[in-house]
């Protein structure tokens, strides 16, 4: 078991550093001060389903696409009766039709491929053509089962299904009972090659269903693909699925707890997709004990038969660096995925402020991970002024020698009232060269962009938010996922549809930085399969680095003027190269004296001008 360190945070502030036997990682003086979450322009927005008040900074809403036909249920939006007459009418309605499904049409996760955005939903998925202008609906598929996390590879769409009521045949009657041969919980595979004839071609049953899944390319074979499946629900009965047994590993070494599922898809025969491994990624690396992750303090209560880290909620893979970051209920972990069928844990962390490790996002360099804490599961108001700023927040961690270390917390810096469900949720890197930026969904807290270039001092640089569905009454809604996909922020709004947002320049983000990010394109983007971004040598990218250097209080005005002249010359004429070599030398010299992110920016600029000089 590795030594785990406590991130100094609330715990430090209260003087309760519990790990007396552990060396604190940060001196108290260096411990980042906890954020104070205050009211701001987002706090008191007016309510409304389609007409709520809005606030934005550093970004602008470009398109808002309401849910398509079949994906909106007016009956599911309901406020409790306020008087006797309303109460009686409601009782009568419930007697006539007890079927009632709030959240059952919630929009969830997204993927983009071949000019189409795929928007998951508890009841199926929708596809939008996004090649030009406003998103245009091109396909709707209904197949209930939640939560509908989607990924795309070529003509295949993968969907996570976890609810007990889900059926193999996307059916009309729920699969009921403790054991039901028609029940489906796992990963569905659809053939979407013909938008006018989508078909389900495979359904891989798993023991704990599929809460989320992650596509993992096979470095050795482009015709095969792996899926890491994270099931968080109860274990199915053996009578329903023979590979499944429940229980603690002490009593049942074969337990379906304490593992993820590795599914292999032969792209030539996707209908044969099957589980090929259920690795014990939480096992103790020395003893091999299956329940090997943190179960107690230094005195050790590992013998107690109680709950612990036995599942991942979400795994983000970064094939380029051979690592995956897992957000696994009670711990954050790092996996070596160089052999994708056999992921092995190389690091893990625990922190008393993290209630539920929910998702993970690497920075582009692969030396930082942002873990989110979905304290409360997303259906409650957890961004109120009285909620601690280190709970339900992001934890920025660094990776050194393949070891995770927690550095700082960052929470949405806006108090959100009782009527808005809010906690840290899904996000993605915005590829601005020279900076680590992440756009992220906070449910009804809206969409927020965090700068975590300095892992000890994360801060917000842009946001978009709406008021509640109804003032004074919490209806579950808001942004489920907010991703940077080919030049725009795409936000799946649980109740209101799909939002498209554009970054706008301001003091914290320049036009060149935005242009550099917008220029990054990919044919297929599955946000949990992270791809390394590289930027071309161009005047825009050079300007982005320069804007960052100039923003620093320590900027050397003479040097920035000199570089600006070089960038201007480049913009006017790609062939005019005089002075480039001198500029490269000046930047190299300055980089030697610089520290932090500016050092990297100057080095990158020196490289660009050096190559330009030829």
């Amino acid at each position, binding site marked *: 078991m590795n030594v785990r360190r406590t991130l100094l945070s609330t*715990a430090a502030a209260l003087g*309760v550093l*519990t*790990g007396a036997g552990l060396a604190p990682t940060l001196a108290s003086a260096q411990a980042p001060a906890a954020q104070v979450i205050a009211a701001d322009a987002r706090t008191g927005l007016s309510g409304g*389903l*389609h007409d709520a008040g809005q606030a934005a900074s550093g970004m602008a809403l470009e398109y808002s696409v309401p849910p398509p*036909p*079949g994906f*909106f*249920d007016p009956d599911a939006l309901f*406020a409790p009766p306020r008087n006797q007459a309303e109460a009686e009418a409601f*009782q009568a309605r419930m007697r006539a039709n007890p*079927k*009632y*499904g709030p*959240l*059952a*049409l919630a929009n969830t996760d997204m993927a983009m491929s071949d000019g189409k955005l795929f928007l998951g939903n*508890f009841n199926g998925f929708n596809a939008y053509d996004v090649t030009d202008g406003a998103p245009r*609906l091109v*396909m*709707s*598929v*209904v*197949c*209930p089962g*939640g939560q509908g996390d989607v990924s795309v590879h070529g003509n295949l769409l993968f969907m996570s299904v976890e*609810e007990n009521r889900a059926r*193999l*045949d*996307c059916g009309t009657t*729920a699969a009921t009972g*403790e054991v039901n041969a028609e029940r489906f919980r796992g990963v569905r595979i*659809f053939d979407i090659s013909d938008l*006018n*004839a*989508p*078909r389900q071609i495979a*359904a891989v049953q798993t023991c704990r269903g599929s809460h989320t899944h992650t596509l993992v390319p096979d470095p050795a074979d482009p015709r095969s693909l792996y899926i890491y499946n994270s099931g968080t*629900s*109860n274990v199915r009965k053996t009578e329903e699925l023979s590979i499944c047994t429940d229980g603690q590993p002490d009593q049942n070494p074969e337990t379906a707890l304490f593992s993820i599922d590795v599914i292999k898809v032969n792209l030539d025969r996707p*209908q044969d997709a099957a589980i090929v491994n259920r690795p014990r990624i939480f096992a103790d690396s020395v003893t091999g004990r299956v329940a090997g992750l943190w179960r*107690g*303090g230094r005195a050790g209560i590992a013998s107690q038969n*109680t*709950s*612990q880290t036995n599942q991942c909620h979400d795994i983000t893979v970064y094939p380029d660096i051979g690592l995956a970051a897992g957000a696994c209920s*009670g711990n954050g972990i790092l996996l070596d995925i160089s052999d994708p069928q056999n992921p092995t844990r190389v690091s893990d962390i*625990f922190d*008393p402020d*993290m*209630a539920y490790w929910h998702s993970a996002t690497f920075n582009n360099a692969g030396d930082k991970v942002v873990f989110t804490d979905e304290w*409360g599961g997303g*259906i*409650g*108001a*957890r961004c109120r002024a009285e909620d601690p700023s280190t709970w339900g927040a992001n934890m920025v961690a660094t990776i050194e020698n393949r070891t995770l270390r927690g550095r700082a917390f960052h929470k949405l810096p806006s108090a959100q009232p009782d009527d808005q469900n809010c906690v840290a949720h899904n996000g993605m890197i915005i590829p601005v060269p020279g900076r680590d930026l992440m756009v992220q969904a906070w449910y009804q807290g809206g969409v927020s962009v965090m700068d975590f270039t300095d892992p000890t001092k994360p801060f917000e640089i842009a946001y978009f938010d709406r008021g509640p*569905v109804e*003032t004074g009454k*919490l209806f579950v809604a808001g942004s489920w996922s907010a991703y940077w996909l080919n030049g725009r922020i795409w936000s799946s709004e649980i109740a209101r549809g799909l939002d498209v947002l554009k970054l706008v320049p301001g003091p914290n983000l320049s036009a060149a930085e935005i242009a550099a990010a917008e220029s990054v394109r990919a044919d297929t983007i599955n946000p949990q399969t992270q791809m390394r971004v590289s930027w071309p040598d161009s005047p825009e990218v050079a300007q982005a680095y320069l804007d960052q250097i100039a923003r620093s209080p320590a900027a050397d005005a003479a040097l920035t003027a000199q570089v600006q002249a070089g960038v201007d010359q480049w913009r006017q004429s790609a062939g005019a190269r005089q002075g480039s070599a001198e500029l490269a030398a000046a930047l190299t010299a300055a980089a030697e004296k610089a520290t932090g992110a500016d050092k990297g920016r100057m080095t990158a600029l020196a490289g660009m001008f050096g190559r330009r000089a030829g």
Partner: protein
Amino acid sequence: MTLLPGLLLAGLIAAQSAGSQTPPIFQPGAPGAASRVITPGEAVALSRSTFTGDDVAFMQHMIVHHAQAVEMVELLQTRAASPAVRLMGRRIALSQQAEMDIMRDWLSQRGQPLEMPGMSHAGMDHSAHAGHAPARAMPASDTPVMPGMLSPAQMQTLAAATGPAFDRLFLTGMIQHHQGALDMVDALLATDGAAEDTLLSDFTNSVVSDQSAEILRMQSILSDL
């Protein structure tokens, strides 16, 4: 916004369907089978799930169960010694109160009473409320009001403790209490037809994940006391 005016809704839906470019809605079949085309009304109907008496009883029970955690944290205000225990208690109280709101909303949105018949406040054994422990003449019961809760006797012992002894009792008691919630979820999921309601299904998942994580944290604090 009040309840969405019917007219506005009708307008919204009409505007959506009026776009003649809207593609059909497919409902796939089992793997290998063809898809069929369904109407928007059928699509919405597919999203609707029903709920059972067991679901309702689960929510009603869980409200009572959570109320005990809040009561335990109230005791903590004047009795706990460890700042880590206080912090933990604060987190638990915030979580359990918020979850109680969700459960009450779930019940009232489905036209169900918040309390089970016979489970009303008046019907409960008052000695369960350790904060105002009754006279010694009536020894508190060793039997909890329902499975997964602390017994009235345990609550009295907790209320009588202070300092490090309280911290230890609080943590062991709260671990037992949280384990009770996990057992309640397990029992619900083993019941025919239960937990098919999407919000309830999501809620039970959050109860399991949050309370498992809190148990982990409490074990950690306990071992460091």
